[in-house]
């Protein structure tokens, strides 16, 4: 028995010695949810990081985008990586409050990120602390078909009143003034967010999504009153179609305007639209004089509480936050860098317009389902869909949302 123990010790020692030969490379495990193009972009970024830090090996495990939303809850508690993708705003709140993400305020302070990532700082802050690093965001706005405008004899609107007036012209030409596909619910929330931001302003909208304002408030009704102006001119079967199907309507010239995120450009161009007939405009002003806030959902990287290699994970976060890394990554992504010292591709009119729109914006909202807690978001988006189908139900919808609000934020 004693001899056995000795032998085991010898084997152990041998293992340890061979182990130490490889231990120079420290491993950082990274769980992500990239689609193919972003995946290639992030792999390039990791290669750059490893070249700069030869002693660190970043091992990325890529998940299917939708499946990731469920998977993250399992791996955070069971088999935690050192880095994980997620989203800013209220979307990260459940993980922060349950202690699944660790605080990275030191990374922000040591690298001057409070300044460089200033536009995204607020959405990464909970309880005055930073909980992750943003690496990309994209603008929302109105994408429109110039051919449809020509066919209806409409001018590109400068104000909300002109936008609404145009709808009558589109109707006469048999074109949907506004299109959307609410089968997956969220596209409708984009329209609501903009109407809310433009009617009552950023602070009010944030108070609403934070549950501080009753849904039966007159100011909520004001937002829906604006929406009611374009509701009759919205694609009739939006509740049955996905956002890609609505994009097809825009491509075919059956619809003129589409309130969407910049990712729609890829789909529209695949459908045959070009920089010549596809236009982008910032959502027009409704209440005069309100500072212009924009919608810019931000994608982020966090360090889970169960991380084994926190030091190197922080190094990686600092690297992802640098201007150069974000320039390179977002050029490949076709999105906008969150670092204000980064540059964007000047030859893409949508990216340049988005960069101009966001960097001059007064404040950035994440998106309804990231600013509001999950349960409120779901109920809200169902309400928006119902309003778009049956505007006469508005009072019942708002009563229901108010009931949900009182339940969700106690």
């Amino acid at each position, binding site marked *: 028995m004693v001899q056995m123990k000795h032998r085991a010790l010898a084997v152990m020692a041998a293992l340890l010695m061979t182990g130490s030969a490889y231990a120079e490379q420290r491993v950082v495990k990274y769980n992500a949810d990239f689609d193919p193009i972003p995946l290639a972009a992030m792999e390039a970024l990791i290669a750059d990081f490893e070249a700069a830090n030869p002693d660190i090996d970043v091992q990325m495990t890529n998940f299917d985008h939708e499946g990731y*939303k*469920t998977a993250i*809850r399992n791996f*955070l*508690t069971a088999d935690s990586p050192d880095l994980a993708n997620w989203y800013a705003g209220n979307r990260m709140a*459940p*993980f922060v*409050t*349950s*202690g*699944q993400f660790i605080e990275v305020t030191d990374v922000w302070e040591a690298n001057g990120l409070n300044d460089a990532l200033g536009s995204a700082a607020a959405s990464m802050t909970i309880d005055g602390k930073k909980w992750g690093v943003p690496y990309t965001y994209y603008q929302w706005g109105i994408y429109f078909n110039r051919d449809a405008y020509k066919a209806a004899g409409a001018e590109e609107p400068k104000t909300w009143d002109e936008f609404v007036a145009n709808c009558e012209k589109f109707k006469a030409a048999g074109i949907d003034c506004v299109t959307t596909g*609410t*089968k*997956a*619910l969220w596209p409708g929330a984009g329209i609501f967010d903009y109407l809310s931001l433009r009617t009552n302003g950023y602070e009010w909208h944030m108070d609403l999504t934070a549950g501080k304002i009753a849904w039966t408030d007159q100011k909520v009704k004001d937002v829906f009153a604006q929406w009611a102006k374009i509701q009759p001119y919205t694609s*009739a*079967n*939006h*509740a*049955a*179609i996905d956002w890609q199907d609505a994009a097809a309507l825009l491509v075919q010239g059956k619809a003129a305007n589409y309130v969407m995120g910049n990712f729609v450009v890829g789909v529209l161009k695949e459908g045959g639209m070009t920089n010549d007939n596809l236009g982008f405009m910032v959502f027009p002003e409704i209440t005069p004089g309100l500072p212009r806030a924009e919608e810019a959902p931000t994608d982020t990287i966090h360090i889970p509480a169960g991380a084994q290699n926190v030091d190197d994970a922080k190094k990686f976060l600092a690297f992802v936050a640098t201007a150069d890394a974000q320039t390179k990554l977002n050029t490949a992504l076709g999105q906008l860098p969150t670092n204000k010292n980064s540059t964007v591709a000047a030859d893409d009119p949508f990216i340049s317009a988005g960069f101009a729109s966001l960097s001059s914006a007064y404040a950035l909202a994440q998106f309804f*389902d990231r600013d509001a807690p*999950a*349960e409120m*978001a*779901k109920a809200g988006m*169902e*309400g928006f*869909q*119902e309003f778009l*189908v049956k505007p006469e139900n508005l009072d019942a919808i708002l009563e*229901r949302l108010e009931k949900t609000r009182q*339940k969700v934020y106690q």
Partner: protein
Amino acid sequence: MSAFWKANQRRLAPWLFLAPGALMFALYVIIPIFQSLWISFYDWDGLGKATWIGTANYVELVDDDSFYTSLKNNVIWLVLYMLAVPLGLLIAIFLNQTVWGMRVYKSLFFFPFVISQVVVGLMFSWFYAPDFGLFYKLIEWSTGTGVAVLADERFVTYGIIAAGLWPQIAYVMILYLTGLNNVAPDQVEAARLDGAKGWKMLWYVILPQLRPATFIAVVVTVIGALRSFDLVSIMTDGGPYGSSRVLSFFMYEQALSEYGYRMGYGAAIAVVLFAIMMIFISGFIWKMWRDESER
């Protein structure tokens, strides 16, 4: 040891053979049932700390409009899904002839049951799809205005049930076809000599002999109606604005979907669904037990 074994072998052997199955059944069915019941008394997001809230989840459920929508839809599902039984019987009787190539027709009718429910759901959503769906075009052609079935709260549940009936009828048909193979030819012969034909033949001679097949058909149809989750999820995701939800989907939505993670509330819905299923299951078990003890 071996003396004990020898003495009790006959008594112990059945239990030993049952043990693996019973263990699995306990681990994956019985224990989880009680766990869900337990979780339904908590407020828990699946990650953080669970807080005991007693029956608050059930109180909320009683006050939740979505719950009643789901319950109502479940009843519609149960009632309309039963159509699969007579329709399946009709097709089975129609196909139960000796014509050249009958096997091909039979397999064609059985085909919808072989393809996955997800595919059935996708096919029907294209069938109903506005602007290019066949059904939409038909309605548009005959009435002038198309109806987007899956976007209209009045029709959406019926639209999904129609999709579900397609494979379900095929399933029931196969059950009846095998049943028809076992119908005693001498009884049919005798009935014919007595002058029975048509409806009377079917009602008094064939159907009584098909009772075991009918029983199984009703059981699988009830279960199919109650677990109608996949079609709802694929075709509408519960929409428009939650009007096509059924209990199983509502449970998934609250507990596991992107905007859910209310494990306690989801578990409470699961318990209610389980209670409803229990009514049917105990009915079936009681009937089986009665049939067997009669023999």
